[in-house]
């Protein structure tokens, strides 16, 4: 099923024309309403009337998370506050949170794009959607909520936390769709095992998972353990929240709602747009946003764009599953390491839980990477030699993939908290002075 045939199957040329028109309108709005952008455009001697079409996008200035922080909380908004009907904010792990605002039309667009992604995941109006994303400032809960209502499904706004009660309600209310972070989905699966809940008592069939990077091997694990189809969705609050992109039933990349959010892939070092198909940093321009329109926003997420038509019939450009962020990347003794690589290795081994944490430190000017892995019940042996063999095997597998030596430490189960939001995977203790 396709929610919006017109835009989701629009021929490429027509889409580019649409994007060009919307871009022109957006530049006019931000030039006259956002002093920050007017200054940036003036520095480049660009006037709104200079924008003729989508090809002009590459000349325009970037926006970064830093810019959002510098203009905290409302200075990048392009409408008077009387037009803003909702505020969300992203958890500021470092410094201030980033604040985003929505007009009534933004909320309508947001519901529309979420309705599209839910439909492409296979959700229908007969479904019961168990929304276990956090409600509140985080965009996950309310974003999925509004889209589900638009689809006409039955929304169960359970929010995050109290896992046992969640499972009880999931069973009693007959939830068919689970929306949460992939790590929370895995945690739910573990709890189902712990409580010996028979899978037949749950009616789940689809998972809508996003808000943190996860690998295909983790997907397999979640699909097997929950017996569902796990759909990857992508979104970030700066752009709109959930609804930026999502997989269809074929799970071969995420269709970007490019009539609202124009994607580009750039080299994070040179900031040049990369040729089609190359991997780099994902950048979005939110052409239809009224409250907080962002020009070429650098997401920090690494991906590549797939232009071939999808088997599902959608013509929307696809982005490859996002496996890392340019700022998640660790450089250990000159080697680039992504936490997702470690996760894949652990999942492929199948002998430990995919719950891990990377601790980086520097001793005698040498980077030390310690991989801490939880020892789940099913892998626990009371023989030291078996645990030592397991440790050695994990170490060998990581070393042969990454090409650097690591230290592996087994830790007790549930050492790492499972957040409804994002799980802290990396602790970098290096002092780079």
């Amino acid at each position: 099923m396709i929610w919006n045939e017109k835009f989701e199957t629009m021929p490429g040329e027509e889409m580019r024309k649409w994007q060009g028109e919307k871009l022109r309108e957006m530049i006019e709005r931000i030039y006259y309403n956002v002093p920050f952008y007017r200054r940036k455009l003036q520095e480049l001697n660009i006037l709104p009337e200079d924008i003729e079409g989508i090809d002009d996008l590459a000349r325009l200035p970037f926006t970064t998370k830093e810019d959002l922080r510098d203009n905290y909380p409302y200075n990048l908004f392009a409408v008077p506050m009387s037009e803003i009907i909702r505020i969300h904010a992203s958890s500021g792990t470092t410094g201030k949170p980033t604040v985003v605002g929505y007009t009534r039309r933004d909320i309508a667009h947001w519901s529309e794009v979420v309705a599209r992604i839910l439909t492409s995941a296979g959700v229908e109006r007969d479904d019961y959607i168990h929304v276990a994303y956090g409600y509140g400032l985080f965009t996950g809960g309310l974003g999925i909520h509004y889209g589900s209502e638009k689809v006409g499904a039955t929304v169960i706004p359970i929010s995050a936390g109290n896992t046992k009660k969640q499972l009880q309600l999931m069973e009693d209310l007959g939830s068919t769709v689970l929306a949460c972070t992939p790590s929370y989905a895995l945690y739910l699966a573990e709890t189902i095992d712990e409580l010996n809940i028979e899978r037949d008592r749950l009616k789940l069939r689809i998972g809508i998972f996003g808000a943190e990077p996860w690998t295909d091997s983790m997907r397999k694990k979640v699909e097997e353990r929950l017996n569902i189809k796990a759909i990857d969705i992508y979104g970030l609050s700066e752009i709109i929240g959930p609804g930026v992109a999502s997989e269809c039933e074929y799970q071969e990349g995420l269709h970007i709602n490019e009539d609202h959010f124009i994607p580009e892939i750039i080299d994070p070092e040179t900031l040049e747009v990369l040729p089609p198909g190359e991997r780099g940093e994902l950048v979005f321009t939110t052409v239809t946003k009224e409250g907080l329109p962002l020009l070429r926003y650098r997401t920090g997420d690494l991906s590549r764009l797939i232009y071939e038509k999808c088997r599902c019939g959608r013509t929307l450009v696809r982005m490859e599953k996002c496996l890392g962020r340019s700022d998640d990347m660790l450089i250990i003794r000159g080697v680039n390491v992504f936490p997702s690589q470690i996760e894949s290795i652990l999942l492929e081994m199948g002998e430990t839980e995919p719950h891990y944490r990377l601790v980086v430190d520097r001793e005698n000017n040498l980077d030390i990477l310690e991989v801490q892995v939880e020892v789940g019940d099913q892998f626990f042996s009371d023989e030291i030699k078996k645990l030592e063999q397991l440790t050695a095997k994990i170490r060998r597998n990581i070393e042969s993939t990454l090409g650097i030596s690591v230290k592996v430490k087994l830790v007790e189960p549930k050492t790492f908290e499972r957040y409804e939001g994002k799980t802290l995977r990396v602790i970098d203790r290096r002092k780079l002075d």
Partner: protein
Amino acid sequence: MIIKQLSVFLENKAGRLTELTGILGRAGINMTALSIADTSEFGIIRTVVSDPEKALQILKEHNFSVSLTDVVCLTTPNKPGALARALEILSVEGISIEYMYAFSIGEEAFIIMKTEDINRTIQVLKENDMHLMKAAELNNK
């Protein structure tokens, strides 16, 4: 004759053993025997308790990695050469011991051991008139 021994994974962190024993104590579970195998990074607690199933459940609820392992408890006279005689029987039969812990008091010595084949161990020791203790006897001692 099989005794269900509780095995628990513990990181080498201050206070962890105190926490573990506290949880068992509050649940009214008594420990009859206990040994700790340790490496530089982690340790394994092996303990014989009054109610292994309940202990397993409670420790799982407290997020410990825990399992039950089949062991036997051999008793011998507390005399020189008694243990050697018992071990000789196993070694003749080619049964290797994975680990053991023991203590003696008064006239008796108690040896808890895990072997590669617990049923054959029991059979062989019994055939040679060795005395094995039942879990209930051990807990009521």
